């Protein structure tokens, strides 16, 4: 038996860089191609978010320079609001401390590691500091080299210069030097990522300069800046004990009751009274020894018969009074166990569906603009479904876009997004893939999906997207979400079907017309022999007859389907 002392000799506090290295996969830094995409993703996401919050139409330029074998310099520049000098270290240097972490808000990034993760990645692969050039549009431009002190988990500026800003430039440019990465034009690479980003963000102008100097422009196709998402109070059905416990510690409200009403959605005075009864009932049910009876009581509770359940216990009013006291105490005194009781009771109670005003879909019009602008299809359509709820309390929304033909190459492509962020990996297990494959495309006149020039984009929006893994590249197969995706696809596919059948009909019409026309000279010659009338005149009669017939047909077709009996 080893002594505890000996065991604890090896015990060390894990540094942030250590954590980063161990969890690189979780953060998107795995594989040479994906790591580069992740660096760019973090930078571009920051730029787009910053622009949106400042109400600026984004202009983002990405430049990749090859410095050596698997060694690149990545430059991302935007026209965003810029970063005030004193926040530079916060933005780029501190991990797990983003502005949006732990807020109930729809956001592109979620862990709050984002760009500081990229800085960290650059630092541990190339040893170089990240160069930041930024200005808020005032009289100076800041140029700073940022590193992360891995032990302290703090950003530090290793060098800083100030330059005059005579032209009033505003924006941020960062340069990172990274190794162990590779630039490839694959479906997991930077090019594809930016293309997908451009489609989902038609208000952004995005440029890419590839290592060989080639400039690729994804132009802006919408002048409409999306409204930044707003914070939503959590819905009682979507919270964990830890959420309640932690929020209670931080709140400024003076009682638990006021805290619950004030910081959760759909909780009113009446709901708190109900909550008291449910907690009391749950406490009492736990005292019941007979397992069968207990089961029955849980079931009745789930049916909402809380008063009846309470009355089945003698002296229940005492328990109710005890529980009521919890609601009156200061929230910071709320114990873990009490928080647990509250969350358990929430599961049995009924609440109005959560509010959805915080969800920010791209919108049908903008999806169409994005697809049209980037893919140049001959047909495009989009569907944004109304918000729905999964797991009882987490609002989400699904939108899809369909683009067909034109410059799209044959072969079905599925573009997946979560909160507008392109998902490039783990397509197979993603609910979007499952939903897209479950559609009977033949029904919508897409006879051979694998060879159709068809692009389907799916965007799942939620304050909490249920990813399958830490990589955040695949959305879990939640029934409610899959259903919504299917409905959205079918809706869009119906519009595609209408377009395709119209196209088929027009093509068939042209073909039919040609069939008749090609025989006219033969017929005219024969009829001329039979009747003695001049061939030319007979030809005219037939041609104008065909002309009139198809003109009449075309005007009828406008009104609706036309029977094909010639």
């Amino acid at each position: 038996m080893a002594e505890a002392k000996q065991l604890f000799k090896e015990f060390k506090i894990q540094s942030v860089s250590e954590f980063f290295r161990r969890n690189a996969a979780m953060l998107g830094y795995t594989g040479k191609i994906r790591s580069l995409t992740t660096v760019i993703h973090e930078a571009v996401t920051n730029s787009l978010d910053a622009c949106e919050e400042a109400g600026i139409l984004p202009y983002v330029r990405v430049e990749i320079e090859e410095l050596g074998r698997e060694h690149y310099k990545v430059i991302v520049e935007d026209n965003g609001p810029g970063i005030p000098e004193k926040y530079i270290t916060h933005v780029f240097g501190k991990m797990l401390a983003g502005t949006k972490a732990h807020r109930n808000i729809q956001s592109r990034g979620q862990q709050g590691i984002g760009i500081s993760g990229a800085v960290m990645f650059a630092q541990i692969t190339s040893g170089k500091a990240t160069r930041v050039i930024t200005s808020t549009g005032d009289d100076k431009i800041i140029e700073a080299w940022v590193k992360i002190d891995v032990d302290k988990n703090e950003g530090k500026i290793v060098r800083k210069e100030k330059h005059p800003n005579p032209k009033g430039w505003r924006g941020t440019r960062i340069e990172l030097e990274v190794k162990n990465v590779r630039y490839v034009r694959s479906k997991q690479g930077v090019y594809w990522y930016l293309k997908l980003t451009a489609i989902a963000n038609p208000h952004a102008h995005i440029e890419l300069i590839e290592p060989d100097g080639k400039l690729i422009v994804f132009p802006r196709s919408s002048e409409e800046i999306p409204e930044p998402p707003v914070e939503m109070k959590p819905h009682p059905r979507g919270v964990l004990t830890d959420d309640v416990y932690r929020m209670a510690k931080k709140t400024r409200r003076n009682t638990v009751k006021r805290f619950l009403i004030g910081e959760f959605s759909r909780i009113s005075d009446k709901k708190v009274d109900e909550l008291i009864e449910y907690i009391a009932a749950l406490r009492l049910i736990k005292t019941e020894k007979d397992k069968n009876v207990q089961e029955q009581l849980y079931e009745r509770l789930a049916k909402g018969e809380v008063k009846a359940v309470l009355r089945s216990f003698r002296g229940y009013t005492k328990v109710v009074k005890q529980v009521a006291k919890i609601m009156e105490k200061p929230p910071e005194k709320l114990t873990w166990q009490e928080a647990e009781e509250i969350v358990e009771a929430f599961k049995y109670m009924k609440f109005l569906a959560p509010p959805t005003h915080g969800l920010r879909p791209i919108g049908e019009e903008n999806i169409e603009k994005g697809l049209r602008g980037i893919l140049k299809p001959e047909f495009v359509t989009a569907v944004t479904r109304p918000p729905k709820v999964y797991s009882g309390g987490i609002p989400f929304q699904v939108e899809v876009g369909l683009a067909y033909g034109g410059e799209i190459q044959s072969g079905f492509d599925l573009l997946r997004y979560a909160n507008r962020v392109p998902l490039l990996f783990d397509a197979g297990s993603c609910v979007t893939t499952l939903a897209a494959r479950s559609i009977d495309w033949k029904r919508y006149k897409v006879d051979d999906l694998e060879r159709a020039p068809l692009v389907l984009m799916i965007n799942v929006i939620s304050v909490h997207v249920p990813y399958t893994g830490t990589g955040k590249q695949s959305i879990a197969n939640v029934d409610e979400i899959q259903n919504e995706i299917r409905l959205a696809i079918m809706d869009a596919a119906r519009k595609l079907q209408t377009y395709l059948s119209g196209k088929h009909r027009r093509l068939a019409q042209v073909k039919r017309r040609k069939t008749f026309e090609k025989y006219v000279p033969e017929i005219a010659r024969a009829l001329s022999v039979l009747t003695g009338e001049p061939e030319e005149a007979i030809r005219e009669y037939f041609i104008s007859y065909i002309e009139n017939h198809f003109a009449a047909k075309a005007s009828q077709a406008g009104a609706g389907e036309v029977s094909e009996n010639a």
Partner: protein
Amino acid sequence: MPKSKAVKREKPKERFSYDPTKVLNKLEEYGRRILEDIKVGKNPYFDIPTRGLNNVYFDEKRRVIRMGDKLSRRYFLNVAHTRKFMQTLLLMAYVKRLVSENKHASLREAYYANKHTIPGTKENTFEDQRESDPIIEDLERMMGVLREEMHLTADRRGYIYGDIVIRDGEDEFNTSKLGMGGWAVPGTVEHLQFVEVNVDYALVVETAAMADRLIEEKFPKKENALIIATQGQASRGVRRLIHRLHYEEGLPIIVFTDGDPYGWYIYSTIKQGSINLAYLSEKLATPEAKFVGMTMDDIERYGLKNVTEKLKGIPPNKKGGPTGDYKRIIEEMNYPWFQNKEWQRQLQLALKMGVRIEQQALANKSLEFVAKRYLPEKINNGELLP
């Protein structure tokens, strides 16, 4: 040998009526009608009697297979019809040229003459003779004229021998003075004129071998008969010739075939017409024709049992039957025109005996037997089947 009254020439019932202007007028009429339709913005069409069994019936009164009145309409402005519409007109124009120039063409020539690539396409007006032949049949049906009248010739098969004088264009000849081979019947017989007919009846013979035998035995001369060899199923030319000789010259027609289902079917076609050419029955069929043999009774009567052959196929009472010859006999038993005592008896007998007998089997007696005894005896005694 005394002449029997059983078979003798009758008065003509029909006058030779071939008139090329009739065909030309019809063609022009169709062309004009189509032109009028298109001028007033109507979809032009042809009405063509439907082909096939479901538009064929047996006319009990006239005793011929006839075509019903079901029509199919062939439109110009119909994707499924338009090609045939064009082909119909092409062939009509071609026929007009043939008839007005008094030239004849075979079906194959008609096909090649009208086949060409349609300008601006890779498509031919006709891809195959199987496309042009049915259109010609359609024209016959549609206009009620024979293709021979349209100067499109049918297969040439069969010959005649006997004391008749025929005028064929500029040639005039007696068909008993052309040697043992007789005179070959051309594809179209419409233009023939019968200058002299010195025979009492026409004997239609299935096989050339038998016809040759009869000629060698001087049967035509002795019996004052015309021999018509069909060489198997009678060609349209031969059938039309038989029809004309019967109706225009009053010649009785007596048919002499093998005693088997095929022979009886040849007889049935000459007499009632065929399903395929039902629309021409009135010009090709000769319902008054009679049958001399071979019959099943002949086997017993002339002691031919040892020269019969077994019917092919499985009899109706055996497992898997009836097939082959048996099946055909049963089919023939169901023909409306075989619904009489004599024929039913013959056919039943064939089924029961399970044998067939060829014309040539009579040579078993002697080479002269058929000419000197069998035929004169049966014909002069009127021992003929209806």
